[in-house]
C-alpha cells in the first residue's frame, strides 16, 4: 500500500499525537463543526471508489488553520444493512488512525482531525488519498462491504447543512438501539474472542446485554458474524422463550451445553442468582451479593478500595471468572447498567445497594430516578453496618425484605443457633473469600463452614468437668 499512498498505514500509528507545532491543518475539533457518517445504500446507488470533494482540498486550506469537516461514506453489498452503519462508522477511528500523519479523535459529530506537516511534505495533498485508504481498509476488514464511496466536505455552509441531516440520523439510530430489545430479534450472537485466554467462556450478546468486556454489542456481533460466520462471533438462534423475565431461551441453553462441554445447561441472561451468565476474566464490573442487606453491590476495576463487604475488586474477581457460573458474583460490561433488562429477574435496580461514586456517575443516565439516591457509594458508606443504616435511612426497597425475613427468622429462632445474638436485622451468614454466597433464604444452614479461632478471647465464668462417655475405653 505504501507504494500507492505517500503515507504508511499501520496500527502502530494509533495514538500518534500531532501537536500544534507539527500540524498542517486541523479539521473539526473543539472550535469547528465536524462529523463523520457512514450510510448503507443499495448496490446501484454506490459507485465503488468514487470520491467527491466539496470545498477546498488539503493544499488549498491555509496552513495552521482550523476548518469545518465532514466525511460521508456510503456502502453497499448484499449483506449491508442499516443496522450495521454505526458499527462500520465506529471503525473509522481505528482505520484513519492507522494513517501516518493523520490524527483522528472521537466519533460522530465530535470528530477532531489533524493532518501533520510531515505528511504533507511526504506527498499527502488531497483528501482523496485519505478517503481511498479508508475505503481500502474497510473493504479489507469488512468484506461484506462490496462498494464504498466518499464525499468529503470542508465548505462551512455545506458542512452545516449536512450536519443537521446527520444529527437526525444519529438520533434515529440511538432510538433504534434503545428500542431494540431481546424480544425484537431472532438471533443473538455468541462471542468467543476471549477463549484464547479463557477457553471455557462464552458471551451471549443480545440487544439488551453487551459482552462482559464491554467491547462487543449486538450490532458488533452481527457485523462480525456477517464477515466470518465461523469466526469467534457467531449467530445463536434464540429459540423458544422459557423465562421472559430471566431471559432464558432454548437456543441459548442448547448452545450453552455445547460450548461449555456439558458443564452448564442453562443461562438466564438477566438473572443474578438463577443460572446467571458465565463470567470471563476481563469483565469491566463485578456484582456481589451482600446477604446482610439482601442487596447487590457493584464494583469496577478502577475502584481499588475494599467494598462494604471488605473485599476489593481483585479479590472478588479472583473468585469469579474463568468461564464459570459463580452464584453470588456476576461479571458484566458497563453498558449493561443501561439495559432496561438489567438483572430484572432479581429486582433490577431495586436490588442495587452500593457502587463506587465514579461508576455511579458514569452510568447515572441508566439509573431510575426514584432509586438513584438510595444507592450508596463509598462517600456514604464503607462497611456493611454503615450501609445497613444508610439503606434504612433512605428506605431502600431491599429494606422491606429484611423485615419479612426477620419475621421468618424469628419463627425459626429456636433452631438457629448463630443468628440470634448478633443483633442483625436478618439472618447472618458468615462467608470467607472464595466461598459462594447464596441468597439468604431463612433457616440456618450450617453450611459445613469450618471456623478456626485465633487470638479469640473467651471469657468463661465457670467450667464444669465431666468425663465424657467412652473416653476411658479409647484412652491409652
Amino acid at each position: 500500500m505504501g507504494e500507492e499512498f505517500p503515507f504508511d498505514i499501520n496500527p502502530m500509528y494509533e495514538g500518534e499525537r500531532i501537536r500544534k507545532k507539527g500540524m498542517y491543518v486541523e479539521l473539526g475539533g473543539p472550535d469547528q463543526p465536524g462529523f463523520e457518517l457512514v450510510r448503507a445504500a443499495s448496490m446501484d446507488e454506490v459507485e465503488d471508489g468514487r470520491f467527491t470533494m466539496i470545498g477546498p482540498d488539503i493544499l488549498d486550506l491555509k496552513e495552521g488553520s482550523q476548518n469545518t469537516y465532514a466525511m460521508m461514506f456510503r456502502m453497499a453489498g448484499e449483506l449491508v444493512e442499516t443496522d450495521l452503519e454505526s458499527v462500520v462508522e465506529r471503525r473509522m477511528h481505528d482505520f484513519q488512525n492507522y494513517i501516518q500523519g493523520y490524527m483522528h479523535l472521537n466519533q460522530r459529530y465530535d470528530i477532531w482531525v489533524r493532518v501533520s506537516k510531515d505528511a504533507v511534505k511526504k506527498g499527502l495533498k488531497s483528501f482523496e488519498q485519505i478517503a481511498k485508504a479508508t475505503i481500502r481498509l474497510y473493504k479489507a476488514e469488512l468484506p461484506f462491504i462490496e462498494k464504498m464511496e466518499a464525499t468529503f466536505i470542508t465548505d462551512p455552509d455545506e458542512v452545516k447543512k449536512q450536519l443537521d441531516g446527520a444529527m437526525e440520523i444519529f438520533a434515529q439510530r440511538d432510538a433504534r438501539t434503545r428500542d431494540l430489545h431481546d424480544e425484537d430479534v431472532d438471533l443473538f450472537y455468541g462471542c468467543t474472542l476471549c477463549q484464547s485466554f479463557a477457553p471455557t467462556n462464552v458471551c451471549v450478546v443480545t440487544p439488551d446485554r453487551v459482552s462482559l468486556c464491554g467491547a462487543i454489542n449486538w450490532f458488533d456481533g452481527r457485523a462480525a458474524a456477517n464477515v466470518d460466520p465461523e469466526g469467534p462471533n457467531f449467530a445463536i438462534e434464540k429459540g423458544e422463550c422459557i423465562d421472559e423475565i430471566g431471559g432464558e431461551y432454548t437456543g441459548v441453553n442448547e448452545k450453552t451445553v455445547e460450548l461449555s462441554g456439558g458443564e452448564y445447561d442453562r443461562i438466564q441472561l438477566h438473572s443474578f442468582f438463577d443460572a446467571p451468565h458465565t463470567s470471563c476474566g476481563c469483565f469491566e464490573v463485578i456484582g456481589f451479593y451482600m446477604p446482610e442487606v439482601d442487596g447487590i453491590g457493584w464494583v469496577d476495576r478502577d475502584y481499588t478500595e475494599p467494598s462494604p463487604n471488605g473485599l476489593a475488586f481483585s479479590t472478588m474477581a479472583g473468585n469469579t471468572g474463568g468461564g464459570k457460573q459463580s452464584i453470588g458474583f456476576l461479571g458484566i460490561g458497563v453498558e449493561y447498567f443501561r439495559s432496561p433488562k438489567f438483572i430484572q429477574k432479581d429486582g433490577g435496580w431495586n436490588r442495587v445497594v452500593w457502587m463506587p461514586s465514579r461508576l455511579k456517575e458514569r452510568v447515572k443516565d441508566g439509573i431510575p430516578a426514584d432509586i438513584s439516591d438510595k444507592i450508596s457509594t463509598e462517600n456514604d458508606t464503607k462497611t456493611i453496618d454503615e450501609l445497613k443504616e444508610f439503606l434504612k435511612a433512605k428506605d431502600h426497597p431491599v429494606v422491606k425484605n429484611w423485615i419479612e425475613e426477620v419475621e421468618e427468622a424469628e419463627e425459626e429462632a429456636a433452631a438457629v443457633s448463630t443468628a440470634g445474638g448478633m443483633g442483625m436485622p436478618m439472618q447472618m451468614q458468615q462467608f470467607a473469600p472464595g466461598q459462594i454466597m447464596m441468597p439468604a433464604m431463612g433457616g440456618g444452614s450450617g453450611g459445613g463452614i469450618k471456623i478456626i479461632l485465633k487470638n479469640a478471647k473467651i471469657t468463661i465464668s465457670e467450667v464444669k468437668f465431666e468425663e465424657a462417655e467412652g473416653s476411658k475405653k479409647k484412652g491409652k
Partner: protein
Amino acid sequence: MAKEGLFKIGGLENVQINIGKIVSEEDEWEPMGPVPCPEVEDMRHWYMKLLDRYPPFYAPYCDMCCLCTFGKCDLTGNKKGACGLDMRGQQARFVLIACCMGASAHCGHGRHMLHSLIDMFGADVPVDLGTQINVEAPIMRTVIGVKPKVLGDFAKAFDYVEEQIAQMMDATHTGQEGSYLDYEAKAYHVGMLDSLAKEASDMIQMIAFKYPMGADVPLVDIGVGCVDTDKPIILVIGHNVIPSVAIIDYLDEHDMRDLVEVAGICCTAIDNTRYDFKAKVVGAIGRQLRFVRSGVADVIVVDEQCIRADIVEQAQRVQAPLIATNNKALYGLPERSGDPAEEIIEDLASGKMAAVAILDPEKVAEVVPKLAMIMKNKRKNIRTLPSDAEQKEYAARCYDCGNCVLACPQGLPIDRAMQELAAGNPEPMSILFDKCVGCGRCEQVCKWEIPIVDVMQKTALKQVKSEKFKMRVGRGPVLDTEIRNVGAPLVLGTIPGVIAVVGCGNYPDGTEDVYKIAREFALRKYIVVATGCGAMDMALYRNEEGETIYEEFPGGFEAGGVVNIGSCVSNAHIHGAAIKVASIFARRNLRGNMDEIADYILNRVGAAGVAWGAMSQKAASIGTGVEVWGVPVVVGPHGAKYRHAHIGRKDDLTKWDVYNMRDGSKVRCEPAPEHLILGAETVEEAIPLLARLCMRPVDNPSGRQIKLTHYMDLSMKYLGAYHDDWPIFVRSETDLPLARKEEYLKVLEKDYGWKIDWDSKKILEGPLRKQDPQFDPTNLERLLKGAE
C-alpha cells in the same frame, strides 16, 4: 484437676465469644495439583516435551573437559571422555552447572536477606500487597503450593530450592548423568527453581521495606551526571540491598541524608531507589570499572554478585576505601564487625588499611557515612584520570599492535581510535565509550601499559558528566487489575504482545541497542517490561522531544507501557504476570500445577524475552527459567557462549502437533512459538524475531492479524525483506495484515500457489490449518477430556 489434652465441653452458658478476624484455612484456597514441590522426575515429562519440540543445538564454546584428573579430555570428532561422556553431554552438563550457579546466586541472596530481614523485623511481617493484588506469589503458589502470608513463610521456598539445587549439582559430578537430554531437563528444573528463588527474594524485600508498587511510582535520577560531586559520595555495588538500606537509614536518622550522596551500580542501585527516591543510579554493570576509575566515589561498598574480582585493587588505585559486606565476596579482607566503628574509620581514613570486610549491616552503617565525610575532604585533590599531557603521551605510546581489539569482547576498533587520538582527534575514542562494556581486558594486553579505560573515559568526559536521565522506580509485580485491564486488548491484538527486556550489559554494539528494542515495541503498543541492567541501560537515551523512554511511555502494564519491574530478582514478576493470566482469565488452579500453567502460557500468552547482553551464569538460569514456563528468549550474539540453543524445527511439522482439549484430537499447528532460546547477531535480526516469537497457536484472527502486521512490517523495516515462510502463520484471509491484504493475497497466489476466490477475497486452499475459535490447545495428555 484438669490436665492437658483433649476434653469435651458439655455445655456453655453466658459465654461471650468475640472474634476479631476470620480467615479461611490454608488448605482451602485451592485444591492441590499433581506436582507440588516437584522433584526433577515429577516435571520431566514437561521438560522432555519442550526438548522434543525445541531440541538442543550445541555450540561448544570449549570442546575439552577438564573437570577431573582423567582429563583433559578432547571431545571433538565424536570422542568420549575418560568418564564416557560425549560432547553433547558435556555441553549440556555445563549448561546445568551454569544454571545451578545462577540459581544459587539468587537463592543464596534471598536466603541471606531473609535471615537479615527476620532479624530486623521478625518473621511475622504480613504479606500485604494492597487491594489490587490477589495472587500475591504466583510462582510460589504454583511450584510449591504455598500461599505465603508472612515473611517467615518464604523460608519454605528457599528450603525447597536449596535442596533441589544440591540434588541437581550432584548430577553434574563425574560418573552421574549420562544423557544430554536429561542434563537439559535438569537445567530446566533449575531454571524453574531460579524463578521461584527470585520471586521469594524480591517479595521479602518488598514486604519488609515496603517498596512502592503500581504504575505511578516516581522517576528517579540515573546517570553519572546526576551524582552531586560537591557532596561526599558513597558508591554501592552489587545486588543485596541490606547494607545500603542500613546506610540510608543511618543517614536519615542522623539528619545527614541531604549531605551525602548514595549512588549505586547494578541491582543494588535499582533496589536502593525502591527504598529511597533520593538514591542515585550511576548505571548498570558496564559503568562499574569506569565509574570507580573516575575517582568520584569517596567510599565504595560492595555486597554480592557482578562485582569485579579486582575491585579492591581498583578502589585502591583511586584511594577510595572499600568495605566488603557479604560473605560471598570477602577478597581476603579481615572481618571487622566486632571492632568499634571509630577504630575501623581511623584505619581506613588514615590509609593504614585500604579495605575491610564488615558483615554486620548496622556496623557498615555506622562506619560508612562518617568515613565518606572524612574521605571527601582527604580526597579533594586526587586526580584519577590522565592529565592532558599524560593523555597525549599515552596515545603516542600506541604502536597499533591491535592486541586491544582482539581482547575486546566486542572487537571495538580501539587501535584506530588511539591513532586518531594521537593525531589530535579524540572523537572516535569518545564514540567508543557507549559501546564499551567496561571489562578492561584491553588494558591487560596492552604491551605499553596504556590505561585505555581511563584514556577513553577522558575523551568522553563531557558527555559522561552530562549523563542525566530519568528512570522509573522498579515497581515489582504487575497488579491483578492491570492484568484484567489488558485481557481484552491482548486477545483482540490491540496489544500485540509482551516484550521483556532483561539481562546484563554484554551488548555487541552498546547500550543503545536495548533502547532501540524497547522503544520500537513500545511505539507499536506492545507492553515492554524491563529489569536489571536492561532497565537501567534503556534509560540513557532521549527521543526527539528530549524525553527518556520512561518519560515518553507510561509505566503501567498497558499498551505501549515501558514498565520497570525492578532488579534481577524482580524478573520473577514477569513470569508471575503470565501465570496470573492463567489464574485470572482461565481460572486454572495454580497450586502444585506447574506443567499445566506452563503449557497454558506456551500456547496462549504472546510474550517473548530478550536478554541482549546476557553475560553471567545468573542470566543463564534466568533465561532457562523463562523458557521452562513457556516463554521464548532471544539472546545477543554472546549468548552462543552459553553453549546451547533450543531451536524449533519447522521443517518437521510433526513436532507441532498440539492436542485440542475439547475432543482430544491432534491439530497440526504453525510453529508458534517457533523457538525457545536462540541468539541473534544484530538488533536488526532480533527485533523481527521477537515479533515472530509473540505468535501463539490460539491467537484469534484479530490478534494474529496485528501480530503478523508488526512481524512483517518489522522484517521489512530491519531486514529489507519478508521471511520467506511468513505464510505459515496465515490460517485464513482474516489473519492477513489489513493494509496490504490484497497485495498479500496476490503474493500467496502467485508465489506460494495458494487458491484464492477473488470475488469473496477468501483463501480456498493453502493454509496449514484453519483457525478454529473452539481450539483449546494443550501439550499435556492429562488435560484431555476423559483423561485421568
